[in-house]
Structure formats: structure tokens, C-alpha cells
């Protein structure tokens, strides 16, 4: 596959991805009904608990709870599980794999693969190694699943508004909002640029010409972005922009939100107490 097609595929993938997230966020499920602020608080509590935990069972139990949350939020479990576990083995899996052997993590051998005492050659899967690899895998998988759950059940604009209400730096929130919006405008531009090039191509390009193609596309984009930002600024001025932005939101906490935070804390402490002795 040529790199132009690769880029086109990347671009359409990003657009598809975000459109798909929005359709799930519009469903009428449990997490969709919660106030985004509540979701962010619970998300951070869970994320911290998972990353601070020194107990494998604790992390796995949290993951099971996430599956339940996904289920009652009308997210297809098959999608929720495969989205994480399909790509995870290729990245974290490859990184975690060597750690199971004795030359990286010494410990009690569970499965001896090669044992040649004459040449001091000994390869085995160790108990500590297996635990280390499992720790990394489950921790990463649970953290990533938490993020997916938050983003899938919250439209992006509400998520950012909620962050603003939670006193994240406002200038950063506003820039993130605007950036997210214009990523898609620029994606459209790049898409047409590559498509236009592809539709005019008959022969093959050399590597060098391909690199020039990418860099000239980028150079042109820098110019276009500059012009576009100027136009947007003019449009903002003509609509009365005076260096101050107000973010409107219509959030209201319900009794459900109260109980969700209580439940999150209860789950975390409950699991902690259950697995404390392990």
C-alpha cells in the first residue's frame, strides 16, 4: 500500500472514530445519564486506584466492574473488549513478553525451556516474571478501558465543559475545544490534497519524491492554517470578541450523581479490603 493510501486511511479512520463515539454517547444508558463532572471525578478515582494498586486481583476486579458499567451503558461488550485487547498484545504485549523469562526477572522457575548446566545456559519462565508481565498488561488494559468508557459515553464538548467547571485552566480548555473543532476542517483539507494528488498519479513515485510530497503538503498546510486562523480571528472580532470567553453549560447534579460517587468510593475501598490479605 502506498503511503498516500496509508495517510488517507489514517485520516478517514480518525473521522470515523469520532463520529462513532458520538453515536454511542447519544444512547440512553447508565453512564450517559450521569453528569460529566461526576464521570470525570469517578474516572480519576478509579484511574488513581488502578495505578497505585500493588495487587493484581484488585486491578482485575476493577476491570470486571468496568465491563459491568459498559454493559449497563449499552456499549457492546464485544466492541469494548476487542477495542482494548486487539491492539494491546501488539504494543504492551511485546514489551511485557521478555519480562517473563529468568534473564530479565529472576525468580522461582515455573516452566523450564532450556536447561544446559555445562554451558550455564538456562531459560525459564519465572513466577515473578509472569507476575510482572501480568501487572503491566492488566494495568495498561484497565487504564485504557477507563479512558474509553469516559470518552464513549460523553460527547466531547460536554467533557471539556465539565473540565472547565472543575476549574481546569480555562485558556487550555478553550484552545482544546477550538483545536478539536478545526482538526476536522484541516483533515478535510488534507484529505482533498492527497486525493487530488492520487487522482493525478499514473506512475510510481520515488521515495525522495514521496518525502517531498509530504513536506510540501505540510508546508502548504502551515500557510493555509495561518490564513484560516486570521480569518477566524476576524470573524470572532466582528462578532464582538473582546479577549474574554464564557463557556456556557447546563449541568445539573442529580441524586444519581451523588450515589455514583459514593458507589465508586465504596467499590474502591471494598475491593481494597477484600484483596488486602492476598
Amino acid at each position: 500500500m502506498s503511503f498516500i493510501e496509508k495517510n488517507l486511511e489514517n485520516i478517514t479512520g480518525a473521522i470515523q472514530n469520532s463520529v462513532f463515539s458520538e453515536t454511542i454517547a447519544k444512547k440512553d444508558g447508565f453512564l450517559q445519564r450521569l453528569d460529566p463532572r461526576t464521570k470525570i471525578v469517578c474516572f480519576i478515582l478509579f484511574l488513581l486506584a488502578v495505578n497505585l494498586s500493588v495487587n493484581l486481583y484488585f486491578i482485575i476486579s476493577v476491570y470486571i466492574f468496568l465491563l459491568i458499567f459498559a454493559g449497563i451503558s449499552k456499549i457492546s461488550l464485544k466492541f469494548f473488549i476487542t477495542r482494548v485487547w486487539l491492539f494491546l498484545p501488539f504494543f504492551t504485549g511485546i514489551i511485557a513478553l521478555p519480562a517473563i523469562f529468568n534473564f530479565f526477572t529472576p525468580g522461582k522457575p515455573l516452566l523450564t525451556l532450556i536447561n544446559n548446566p555445562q554451558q550455564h545456559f538456562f531459560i525459564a519462565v519465572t513466577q515473578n516474571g509472569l507476575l510482572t508481565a501480568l501487572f503491566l498488561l492488566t494495568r495498561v488494559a484497565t487504564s485504557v478501558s477507563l479512558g474509553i468508557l469516559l470518552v464513549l459515553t460523553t460527547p466531547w464538548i460536554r467533557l471539556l465543559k465539565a473540565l472547565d467547571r472543575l476549574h481546569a485552566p480555562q485558556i487550555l480548555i478553550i484552545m482544546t475545544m477550538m483545536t478539536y473543532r478545526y482538526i476536522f476542517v484541516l483533515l478535510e483539507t488534507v484529505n482533498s490534497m492527497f486525493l487530488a494528488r492520487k487522482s493525478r498519479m499514473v506512475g510510481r513515485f520515488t521515495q525522495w519524491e514521496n518525502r517531498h510530497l509530504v513536506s510540501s503538503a505540510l508546508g502548504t498546510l502551515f500557510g493555509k492554517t495561518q490564513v484560516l486562523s486570521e480569518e477566524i480571528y476576524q470573524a470572532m472580532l466582528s462578532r464582538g470578541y473582546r479577549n474574554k470567553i464564557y463557556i456556557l453549560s447546563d449541568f445539573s447534579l442529580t441524586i444519581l450523581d451523588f450515589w455514583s460517587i459514593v458507589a465508586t468510593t465504596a467499590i474502591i475501598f471494598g475491593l481494597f479490603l477484600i484483596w488486602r490479605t492476598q
Partner: protein
Amino acid sequence: MHIPDGYLSPTTSFTLYTVCTPFLMKASREAKKKLDSKTIPLISLFSALSFLIMMFNVPLPGGTTGHAVGTVISSIILGPWIGMLTTTVALIIQALFFGDGGILTLGANIFNMAIVMALAGYAIFRFLAGWKKETGWKIVSAAVAGYIAINLAALLAAVELGIQPIIFRSITGQPLYFPYGLTVSIPAMMLGHLTLAGLAEAFVTGLTLSWIYRTNPSLITPDKKVAKSGRFFPLAIVIIFLLILLTPLGLLTPGTAWGEWSRQQLSELGLGYIPAGFDRWTGLWSAPFSGYNFSVLGNSFLGYLFSGFLGVFIVVSVVYLLFKVFKLKNK
């Protein structure tokens, strides 16, 4: 290079968030000073572009493709502080909405890819580009700056990952986060970045700049004050400071630097003899802090750091004295 959640301990993550804060505050102050009310639309749009650059596949020699970060080209065109901000916003969006890089590790990713790459890349570019006036030389400087900056960022990421098993282990001794030490994480990380990612960054930085010089040179912000090398003095200090902080890494490599053996090590090498000249001269000078060790400090890690600072101090003083003696004026 986007570190996901679960690879770093929360302690490391929060430390790096804290380290990022002053840089980002300074950056947003600089941006407001330069752009005033244009700050928000301009930075947002260029952040969107920065997000796109990270998504691009760059064709590399050998038929593979690689991704560039793009902080260096943004820093050269928009200035290091704005370049830093645009990459930061792009990284936030990647972490929040696209699951690229973790939420807790966002501080680490911002530090490596936005802050260090912007400052180091820009400083290297200015340093090299200041030598000659030709455009061709500037393009080469930009490519070199991109290459070095991404590798510096990768090195920092490798160090952040590699210190995890040293600091965080369970009671039974198994690593809790990233399992490999620095001796594994640094070579593994650098292999990919010295080759593929480094080249991608070099190509993107150099070729894009060359395209802009040819078609739209007004885009590059002329910053007259920056032309003076004196402005980079503080930056140079920061970089030297960072390098000193990295010196204890040397402790991890086994053995002595090639060609720097002592008399005893030389005999252990199995050479069979000690060169006669070596024997004659070797007792001539015994260093006050042999092996960079300060027995008073009782800790080789601290000793290394102290040696680093002392060494830099001595070099700077000697150069300063030479300048004084020969009455050279630093123009």
C-alpha cells in the same frame, strides 16, 4: 513515544506534571505578549495542524514509514513557546479523545515531546543556523535540530521508564510498572529513534522549512531579538544542567570507557604486558577526586552529580579567565 497509563508510577507522573507547570505558564505568558487577542484562534489552529503532523506517515528509506512529532518545525516557524503550546494541546487531545498516551502520563509526554523538544530543537537550530546565512545551511540546521531534539525526547522517555523498576517494586521484588531497567530501556528506545523516528523528524523539519522558504517565506516569524546569541545563554545553562543530571546514567554501564583503563584494569585486560610508557607516566598525576568519587558524600550517585557540577564550573572559570587574560571580547 507516547507513554500510556500503567507504564509509569503515579509518583513519577505527578513529578513530571509539576515540572511542566512553570514552562507552560511561561509559554502562555509569552504567547499572550506576542499575539495578544489572537492567541486563542492562532494557537488552536496550529495545534490542530500539530495533531495532523503527528498523524502523517512519512516515507523513509527502505520502504518503511515513520511518524514525526513536529514540535521542532512549529518552534522554528512560530517560536519555541508557541511551538511548545501547540504540541501540548495536540497531546491533550490525543490522550483525551484518541487514547494515544495516558492521562496520568500526560505530564511526562508533554515534558518530553512538547517542552524539551521545543526548547532544545529551537536552541540547536538557532545555534547552527547562526553560522552561515545561506538558506541551504538553514535547512540542514533545521533537519539536524529535528533529529537531535526527537532523540533527546526519546532519551528522556527511556530514562523515565527505566527508573521505574529501580524505584517501584512489590514486597516480593517484582517490578510494578515498566519492568526493564535503564540498561534495557535506553538502547531499546534509542534504536528506533536514532533510525526511523529521528529520520522522519529530520525530513519533516528540513523539507517543510525548505518548502516554506521557497513558497511562503513571510510565514516565518522574524524575531530580531532572537538573532543575538546572548539570548540563548539561559537556555544553554538549562541544557547543561539537564546533561549534568543525566551523568549518573554512566554508573549503569559496566566496565570502563574504552581506552581509559587504569594500570590495574590494563593488566586485567589480558594484554600480557603493561606498555612501558604507561608505567612511567601513570604515577605522575593523581586526581583529587579519582573515579569521580567523593568518599565524604558516601554515595556514588551524588558524587557523580557533584563531579559534574564541579567539572562544568572549572571549565567555565578557565575559559572566563582565558578571555580576561587575552582581553577577548564576546561579541
